[in-house]
């Protein structure tokens, strides 16, 4: 499942520092119905995507390096974004664990460690696969080693869902907070323009 993505560069004062912080989809993609839960009993479904900007990150808790820094950078990026957009346009951040067997008991505590407003969910394999496919994402549980430990490969990019519930863009590493905020603010401006046309 390949889609043509249009690269857009974040606005930069110095071309020498050019970094792609995100890619904008050519066409918005509708999200299918899905449902996740967490250890607090809360639910996250496709209806929760309406009327707010949502950033969805896939990962797993036994991830010492990439996942914590992505969430740490997202926290900084959302804080930056909150200084540039109206309060009701500040994106929600949802961490979805693709490793429910190990993570189901902790996924909320984990996400909220990075920001009290962050939410963490996981769920049935089928639900995970549905959202992974809908966002053109990827994950794979690797073969366990002799101790039973296994690695998880997963998409590094973060899905950006607009308030109409459609996937609009992907944020990409290194998630520079200022440039990511600039990308999100510009995306919101073009989204509003589209709505008024």
């Amino acid at each position, binding site marked *: 499942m390949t889609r043509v993505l249009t690269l857009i560069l974040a606005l930069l004062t110095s071309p020498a520092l050019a970094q792609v912080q995100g890619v904008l989809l050519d066409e918005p993609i509708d999200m299918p119905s899905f449902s996740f839960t967490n250890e607090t009993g809360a639910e996250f479904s496709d209806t929760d995507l309406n009327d707010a900007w949502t950033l969805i990150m896939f990962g797993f808790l036994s991830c010492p390096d990439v996942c914590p820094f992505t969430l740490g950078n997202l926290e900084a990026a959302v804080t930056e974004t909150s200084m540039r957009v109206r309060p009701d346009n500040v994106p929600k951040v949802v961490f979805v664990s693709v490793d429910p067997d190990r993570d189901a008991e902790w996924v909320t505590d984990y996400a909220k*460690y990075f920001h009290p407003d962050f939410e963490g969910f996981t769920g049935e394999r089928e639900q995970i696969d549905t959202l992974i496919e809908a966002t053109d994402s990827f994950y794979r549980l690797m073969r366990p080693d002799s101790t039973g430990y296994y690695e998880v490969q997963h998409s590094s990019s973060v899905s950006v869902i607009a308030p109409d519930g459609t996937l609009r863009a992907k944020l990409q590493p290194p998630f520079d907070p200022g440039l990511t905020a600039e990308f999100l603010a510009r995306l919101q401006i073009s989204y509003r323009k589209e709505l008024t046309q």
Partner: protein
Amino acid sequence: MKYLAALALLALPTTGFAHDLAVRDAYVPLAAPGATVHAAYMMLTNPSAEPEQIVSVSAQGYAMAHIHKSEVVNDVATMSMVEMIEISPGQTVMLEQGGLHIMLMKPEAALAEGDTVVMTLEFADGTTQLVEAMVMPLMKGMHGDHSGHGS
């Protein structure tokens, strides 16, 4: 003569004679609840005239430690075990976010800011060197505020 021998012993680094990598900015980020693996980062410089080969790592307070490397290839984040870190004479190797790091597995207790994690680097010839890493908030360590020059 005995006196001289004692002096010579004192002059030796306590962590081993053959290997004395210069270690800077060693830190372990505070980990979120539920994280059963932690990471250690540092800057390793080989001041000697011989190449150094780190073949394994162990850490006090953890069941296991591995040398690991994160990579993002075609938007997929992967991690893999690294058999050895080789550092040429004069070379500096960065263990940093998104690249080489030490993966610390199954912590015996939660980390607190200001804790120290003691690791043992083992070299190809079987000798070892101790490294102490400071525990600090995730983004603070990343931005290099742990150099000791700040507040």
